[in-house]
């Protein structure tokens, strides 16, 4: 107990919600959570959205974001309860004893100030060191965190460095005043997977070398398993399970934790060869008014009733490929064959059957449905438009589709705003199915969802594929999703398909450089994975 840096007991956190058109009401975000953190240790806080993990993280600085109040319990930092400390006392400890690394470094830096000024600001404001000393320490930290040109990068403005670099500068900013505790709030979530691993490794090394304690907040269990000594699983403001990292990953006790650990371990065996429903041959495309090809000579093939996963990071051109296939961005060169017919490049020239048989599901189900239409109208419109169904026959068919997406009765007259995130995506799936398509393009359809909900959607998509023999072009940046659903895979990098084939072929060595980098960067749910990857990369680098 005496060694504890941070002890939280029975913490209750409340906020006032202002639902439009209704009187304000009190809501409880965190219901009596307790935790302990020893000096120099890392505690991972994990949970889905609404779990209260960020709120708890910030409570270690007695900070309530947006009018959030810490209403009961104790928050003991370095031996004193800070929950109700005076503003002056809080200012003295924030930045000196505890610092914070935000999810979006791009927003968290003041756009009008140079990086160095912001990095050393805390040390100077608290009188911890002189300007020269602080700058020297910042440069040292920049170097340790693997930033290019550590001597000069501090002279840049936030918009002049990349997202991954900014996240590392933010880590340097948190470590510069030599705090006892750093709160990392989803520091790698907004980054591409190959960038994430570098930042993660840099953060881990910095934590180890400076001996600072940390609260590491994330929704990704595989990520936190690489950096934390202990893990606390949270759900809807309550603790579900607490234990050492090894115990949580290897022998989870609670059903919820088990579900989180086994998420996306859907076993999907690829289907045998079949005639193709979609062939994309040598397609090149560019956006109007630019001189740069966003797709370069892309050739892929998708067998009927199967799933082609198109995987790549931001800027790889994977979403552009979807726009070209749908005709929103007509291809400059190349040929697309769909269901045995040649497909016109532009949307306006396509037949009604072309449109009907090629449907699309979007990443953000929120904005993919007209908020002024009921579920019945949303799903019913394609039935009316393509098959001329009206009245009772239409309603009957809408209900059948709702049953098919496991939503049952009582949803047909609801508006999208009345549905949960997973339900919204299911309605979008039903709308696509209503057209009896041969191919559905799924654009990052699970990326905005919590892992367990995403799992449910993937299982539903697989079941529907078995029933309806519909093919999916599945665009994603997430390799775990690819493993769960793909029959074939196309890996894209800077507008080109760098690797294409059946799932087994693509995921088996020998790899090309990019696929190797991509595959080895996906965090795995096992202890010591990060060290292994880093060590093997160093060996390769040394070998070269």
């Amino acid at each position: 107990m005496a060694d504890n840096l941070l002890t939280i007991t029975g913490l209750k956190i409340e906020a006032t919600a202002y639902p439009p058109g209704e009187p304000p009401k009190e809501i409880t975000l965190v219901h009596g959570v307790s935790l302990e953190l020893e000096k120099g240790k890392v505690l991972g806080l994990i949970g889905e959205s609404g779990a209260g993990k960020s709120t708890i993280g910030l409570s270690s600085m007695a900070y309530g974001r947006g009018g959030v109040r810490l209403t009961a319990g104790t928050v003991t930092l370095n031996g004193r309860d800070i929950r109700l400390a005076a503003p002056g006392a809080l200012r003295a400890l924030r930045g000196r004893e505890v610092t914070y690394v935000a999810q979006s470094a791009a927003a968290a830096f003041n756009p009008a100030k140079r990086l160095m000024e912001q990095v050393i600001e805390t040390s100077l404001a608290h009188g911890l060191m002189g300007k020269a000393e602080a700058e020297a320490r910042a440069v040292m930290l920049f170097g340790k965190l693997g930033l290019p040109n550590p001597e000069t990068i501090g002279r840049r403005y936030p918009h002049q460095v990349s997202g991954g670099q900014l996240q590392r500068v933010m880590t340097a900013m948190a470590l510069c005043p030599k705090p006892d505790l750093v709160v990392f709030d989803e520091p790698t979530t907004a980054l591409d997977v190959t960038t994430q691993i570098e930042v993660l490794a840099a953060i881990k090394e910095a934590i180890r070398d400076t001996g600072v304690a940390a609260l590491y907040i994330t929704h990704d269990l595989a990520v936190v398993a690489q950096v934390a000594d202990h893990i606390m699983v949270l759900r809807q403001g309550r603790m579900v399970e607490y234990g050492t990292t090894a115990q949580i990953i290897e022998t989870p006790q609670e059903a919820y934790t088990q579900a989180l650990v086994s998420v996306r371990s859907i076993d999907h065996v690829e289907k045998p060869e079949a005639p193709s429903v979609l062939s994309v041959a040598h397609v090149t495309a560019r956006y109007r008014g630019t001189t740069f090809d966003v797709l370069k000579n892309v050739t892929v093939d998708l067998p009927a009733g199967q799933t082609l996963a198109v995987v790549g990071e931001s800027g790889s051109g994977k979403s552009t490929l979807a726009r070209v296939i749908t005709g929103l961005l007509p291809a400059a060169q190349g040929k697309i064959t769909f269901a045995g017919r040649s497909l016109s490049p532009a949307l306006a020239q396509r037949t009604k059957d072309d449109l009907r048989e090629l449907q699309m599901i979007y990443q953000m189900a929120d904005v993919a449905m007209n908020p002024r239409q009921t579920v019945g109208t949303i799903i019913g419109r394609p039935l009316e438009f393509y098959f001329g169904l009206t009245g009772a026959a239409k309603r009957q068919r809408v209900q059948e589709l709702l049953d098919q997406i496991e939503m049952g009765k009582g949803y047909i007259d609801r508006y999208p705003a009345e549905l949960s995130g997973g339900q919204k995506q299911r309605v979008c799936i039903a709308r696509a199915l209503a057209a009896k398509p041969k191919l559905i393009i799924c654009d990052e359809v699970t990326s905005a969802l919590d892992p367990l909900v995403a799992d449910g959607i993937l299982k539903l998509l697989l079941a529907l594929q078995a029933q309806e023999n519909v093919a999916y072009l599945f665009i994603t940046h997430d390799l775990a999703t690819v493993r769960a659903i793909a029959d074939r895979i196309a890996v894209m990098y800077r507008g080109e398909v760098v690797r294409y084939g059946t799932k087994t072929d693509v995921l088996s060595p020998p790899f090309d450089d990019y696929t190797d980098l991509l595959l080895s960067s996906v965090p795995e749910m096992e202890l010591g994975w990060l060290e292994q990857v880093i060590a093997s990369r160093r060996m390769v680098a040394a070998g070269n």
Partner: protein
Amino acid sequence: MRIPIAALIGLIFTGAYFLAAIFAGLLAPYGMAEIVGDVWEPASAEHWLGTDSIGRDLLSRMIWGGQTTIFVATAATILSFTLGSILGFIAAVRGGWVDQLLSRGVDLMMSIPSLISALVVLSVMPVTLPVLILVMGLLDATRVFRLSRAVAVDIAVMDYVEAARLRGEKQTWIIFREILPNALSPLVAEMGLRFIFSVLFISTLSFLGLGVQPPLADWGGIVKENKEGIVYGIPAALIPAVAIATLAISVNLVADWVLNRTTSLKGGRGG
């Protein structure tokens, strides 16, 4: 449906003003230009608000004036709305050179303050009610154009509009079924604000002697007719201030409510 108290007050007052305007003939105790007493008589049982600079009943002038003011403002608002929102939607949905042409034209019109433009035009045009309505409606249509174009552009990039395009829907369906229902609330709220602006605008023009012409009564004109009384401590010219301010505030309250109601439907991130 629960209506908040502020919006309810706003609705009642707005409704009362419009009813008074429509039934001015029944409500006004005296004729519009009828001389019924001495100059600037104080309030009395016969003349609740007193009489004006040439002995007409002020209450009657106010009611008749309300009719003119509200009629001109309503007509100008309808004109500016129809024209502005249709052109705004067309610019947003069609894009390209149509959008460029309309948007740059509006930029140009808005580079001169509305009052100045109105004065310039009125220096050569005959000052009649149709001309006033036309000038005010056209000048105000630029603001409606900007708003409706911005709202429609925001909606047109939504995935549900793209989904409708991919389904093969015609442009009329996209405008009337996908975009319009979602653009309606901000536009209705804006309509309230434009109406208030029109009331202030026509009152200002009449006060300057370049709006509604005597003997027709309107609120701005009543100020002009009675302004000499002010220095003698006769507040007749200030009565329209009460009418304009209460009308403006009550329409504001209704517009705020309409706007708030929209945001409640748009939510739906949680759950």
